[in-house]
């Protein structure tokens, strides 16, 4: 028996064959390119989302790009260039990049869409220094390490000085020296620095190695009430506009991971240990000073702006033209009822 194919039938079959991949992909998961700092304690929510199948549940295929600690600039640049849809890491780089573009007359290309680890900044001092209050040491010529002069922890400390003490870093006698997070504890142990401004696990490592003591921790309210998030998640405004539904699903997956973490934080210690490359014992000690739950309310965003943003404007890092809810934050991806 011979099967005769009409011209119309041939055209229809050929069109179906050509269209097949896009039909298949339309029903498959949506791809999201996510850049994260790794190994790092602050971005563990992504690993929890992976482990708990949160992305799959929301029909997402997340392609991760890992950035080492200190590479947030690279991550934000990749986000800006369109190679990533989301980036999670340090914080001040996104407003900084938007500020440069606004200064040149272009619209802000990026937006902060979520955040984590409120008050993750610690001021650790050498054991030789045991002041009763910070006022005792502000005018001593201390060498305080920060991961860079643009670090989020220094930005946070500047915010604290400005909001609580009405001072800038120029008014105090401290010298801020750039030391990578991993080198801070050895530098403190060998007396090369008098303290550091950083987050976990550096604080815990300094304490258990008896290199120093935690003098201030922002989450405890030592640097003002209701500290803003230290880790921010950013996205591109064109992605938020064009793929809003995908973005919302991604954020819901992150919220699922939040729930999984909040249900039993201590059960997540092995996951955090593996993701951060730290010993589980250290993670368990550090856990009390971290909160990887990733979300952002309007009030938190406003706090970030009033505390860190204003200090960055005061220093000249951000343009005064920058408007917080038009040029920096976009909370439209946050699940309804959250923001």
């Amino acid at each position, binding site marked *: 028996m011979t099967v005769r194919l009409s011209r119309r039938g041939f055209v229809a079959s050929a069109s179906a064959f050509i269209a097949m991949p896009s039909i298949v992909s339309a029903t498959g998961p949506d791809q999201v390119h996510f850049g994260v700092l790794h190994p790092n304690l602050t971005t563990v929510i992504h690993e929890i989302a992976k482990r708990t199948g949160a992305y799959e549940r929301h029909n997402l295929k997340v392609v991760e790009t890992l950035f080492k600690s200190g590479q947030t*600039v690279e991550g934000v640049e990749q986000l800006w260039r369109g190679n990533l849809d989301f980036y999670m890491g340090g914080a001040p*780089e996104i407003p*900084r*990049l938007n500020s*440069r*573009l606004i*200064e*040149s007359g*272009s619209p802000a290309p990026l937006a902060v869409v979520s955040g984590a680890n409120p008050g993750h900044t610690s001021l650790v001092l050498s054991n030789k220094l045991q002041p009763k209050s910070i006022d005792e040491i502000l005018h001593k010529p201390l060498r305080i390490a920060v991961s*860079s*002069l*643009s670090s989020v922890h220094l930005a946070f400390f500047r915010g604290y000085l400005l909001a609580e003490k009405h001072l800038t870093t120029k008014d105090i006698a401290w*010298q*801020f*020296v*750039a*030391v*990578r997070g991993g*080198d801070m504890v*050895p*530098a403190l142990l*060998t007396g*090369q*620095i008098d303290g550091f401004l950083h987050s976990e696990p550096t604080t815990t490592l300094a304490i258990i190695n008896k290199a120093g003591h935690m003098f201030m921790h922002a989450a405890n309210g030592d640097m003002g009430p209701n500290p803003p998030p230290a880790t921010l998640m950013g996205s591109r405004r064109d992605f938020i506009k064009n793929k809003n539904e995908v973005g919302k699903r991604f954020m819901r997956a992150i919220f699922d991971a939040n729930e999984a973490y909040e249900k039993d934080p201590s059960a997540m210690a092995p996951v955090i240990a593996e993701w951060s490359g730290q010993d589980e014992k250290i993670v368990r000690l550090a856990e009390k000073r971290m909160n990887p739950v990733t979300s952002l309310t309007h009030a938190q965003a406003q706090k970030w702006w009033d505390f860190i943003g204003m200090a960055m404007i005061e*220093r*000249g*890092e951000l343009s005064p033209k920058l408007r917080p809810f038009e040029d920096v934050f976009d909370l439209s991806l946050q699940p309804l009822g959250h923001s």
Partner: protein
Amino acid sequence: MNSDGLLTEQIPGAGPEAEVLAAAEVGSKLSEYGRLRRQRERRRRFRRGAIGLAVVLCAWQFMAVAYNLQQILPTPLVVAKTVFNALTMHYEQRWLYGPNIYEHLAASFVRAISGFAVAAVFAIPLGLLVGRITAFREYVDPIIRSLYPIPGIAWIPLAILWFGLGNTAVIFVVFIAEFFPLYFNTEAGARSINPILVDAGRCFGATRLTLFRRVILPAAIPYIITGMRIALGGAWRMIVAGEMLASQTGIGSVLMESRFQFRANDLMMAMILISVVGFATEKLIVGTLEKKTTQKWEVKVL
């Protein structure tokens, strides 16, 4: 016709003095011709260099504007303005890099020169010894050659560990980066001396010291100068890497911070200043040494 039967041009009132004067005149015309020729060559070199530079600047301006790349590739005019503003300390944007640019440049310059001086003190005598004494070479050369492939930047973490944060660590990595080109060039210079020159010196009764001073050192000088030229270039490359990781001052730290601030114009300003200061340092130090040695002694690499 003279006594040899050759026709000679008779100059009125000619005598030996007139011939000398004529020769002097020819000589002066020749030297004038040479001067003019050198001047023309200089002008030609300048013209060609200026044309090359103008082409690069035009292409740069075109790329930045046509492809709307000003955020990552500021135009030459913007960069020139940023350099001018930094040098006059009249900033349009807030200066976020601590001390003014002169203090940063001075800090980098001191580190580069210190590293260079220490490297020269060690590498040149060692290179001369290794190049001239076979037994010494057999002991020392394998060690140095095995250290050579380690990139300068790989020494930075160790330098921080050994010397802590600050000047010494940066000077150490600069020293490491400068040592090898100086050593290898000096050693090659010392090895390539024509043995006839050394034997001739010995025949004339030259002592070891005289031989070293009058034969070996002048013959090795072109190689040493080349080594210095390469080493100083390497010093500026390494100083930027060192200052990015282990220092709060210096042009490398300005470069790093401007990247954190996404200020491409400041980044390029720092790069241009490194290039200018590096070029000037090379001209000042190596150029002066070259004039005082190679050109004075008229030694050339054959």
